[in-house]
């Protein structure tokens, strides 16, 4: 197993992430043009979506009862999002300003698309390295919006209520706008619609789809490297902002490290419970990707949602916590751990 962890830690995407971080420390002028960053996000989300959609149809054809598992996972996601947000907010408000605590709650409840993308990359690699076994079916990222929207809405509603209690006034949360932002925000939107594209094509145009998938699959394993390079740059650039956390820095650091690990494990256990109830339909790769949905800390949708709906919260608290602490820790510690735990539960380790 030790070898597998090493293989994971020295996989090209992880090393490119480290390269990105080091580039900032040594003050290299390496930078990813924003257009290139956006292009990579669009590609990755489209690729995850279309591949997942095609996989879903294939799996459903083989076993129509899978739909029950998918619904169960979606419901679980919809419950876990707000649950994570509530727990995070409750824990954080003990040492943070109310607004900051609930803004962080939204981030830790919501989904991080970069984390999911890396999770999918690792699960797909595991599947590719071992084609005989059933490891990862690809449809899992489809439940993304269920967890994401519900978590952000919960955090904002709870946060605004807390602020009203505290200050007796302030903004009103615009739930409709938050829902819109999370469902129609670039990342989720491309993922979900590409999922439908994959499903529709798989049914009506399988020949064309299979040729398109050659492109998406082949590119994915390379683009994820360059994307992780960008993430490494972004993470390291936010480290400086951590000093704004001031005297609570140590506490914030501990939570930023520990919480996602727990949320990820809760995700795995939830998936495992569904697996026990409806056996033979979920595999360790699926559980692992669900852990990356649960354990990731959003840093694209959540910051935008919070800046608009909790302007009282300080972006210099939540941005660096999500980008500079939780994401690197998840990449380097959380994901290997979630992978091992999933494998152990499914008896694959």
């Amino acid at each position: 197993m030790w070898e597998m962890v090493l293989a994971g830690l020295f996989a090209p995407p992880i090393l490119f992430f480290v390269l990105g971080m080091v580039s900032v420390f040594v003050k290299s002028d390496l930078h990813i043009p924003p257009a290139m960053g956006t292009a990579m996000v669009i590609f990755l989300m489209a690729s995850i979506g279309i591949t997942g959609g095609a996989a879903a149809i294939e799996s459903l054809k083989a076993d129509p009862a899978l739909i029950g598992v998918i619904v169960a996972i979606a419901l679980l996601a919809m419950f876990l999002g707000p649950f994570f947000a509530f727990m995070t907010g409750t824990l954080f408000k003990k040492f943070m300003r109310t607004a900051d605590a609930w803004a962080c709650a939204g981030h830790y409840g919501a989904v991080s698309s970069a984390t999911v993308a890396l999770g999918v990359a690792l699960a797909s690699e595991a599947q590719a390295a071992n084609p005989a076994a059933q490891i990862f079916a690809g449809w899992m990222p489809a439940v993304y919006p269920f967890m994401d929207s519900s978590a952000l809405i919960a955090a904002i509603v709870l946060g605004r209520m807390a602020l009203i209690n505290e200050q007796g006034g302030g903004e009103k949360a615009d739930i409709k706008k938050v829902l819109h932002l999370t469902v129609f925000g670039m990342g989720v939107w491309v993922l979900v619609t590409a999922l439908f594209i994959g499903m529709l094509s798989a049914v009506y145009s399988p020949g064309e789809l299979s040729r398109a998938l050659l492109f998406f699959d082949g590119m994915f394993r390379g683009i994820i490297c360059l994307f992780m390079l960008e993430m490494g740059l972004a993470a390291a650039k936010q480290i400086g902002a951590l000093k704004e956390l001031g005297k609570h820095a140590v506490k914030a650091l501990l939570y930023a490290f520990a919480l996602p690990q727990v949320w990820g494990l809760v995700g795995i256990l939830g998936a495992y419970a569904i697996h026990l109830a409806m056996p033979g339909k979920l595999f360790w790769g699926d559980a692992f990707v669900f852990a990356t949905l649960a354990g990731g800390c959003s840093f694209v949708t959540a910051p935008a949602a919070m800046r608009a709906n909790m302007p009282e919260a300080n972006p210099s608290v939540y941005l660096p916590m999500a980008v500079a602490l939780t994401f690197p820790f998840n990449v380097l510690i959380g994901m290997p751990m979630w992978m091992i735990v999933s494998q152990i539960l499914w008896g694959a380790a």
Partner: protein
Amino acid sequence: MELIAAKKVIIITEALMEQQVLSLLKAQGAEAYTVIRNLTGQGVRGVRSGQCLAGFCENVRIELIVKEEAQAKALMEAVYNKFLAEKYAGIAYLEDVRILHHGKI
């Protein structure tokens, strides 16, 4: 040709707020403006270096030429009160200009 004295209002604020600020300005009667994106800067609310993801730490600059000082001030104050006073980074200032008259202000 005639040059007409007018006021140019300039608002620099967080890129994320562009749409909301423009909506407010339109609601206040502004019908013409120019927007420059992808600015960076520094002010009392920290460095905005353009280095966060999703344009989160970039600024945007909106400029509007209006005829009357009163209207210029009203626009600035509306934006200031709703956005810049407490919640969002940004400044608003005013310059004297003379514009070629062709029904633009």
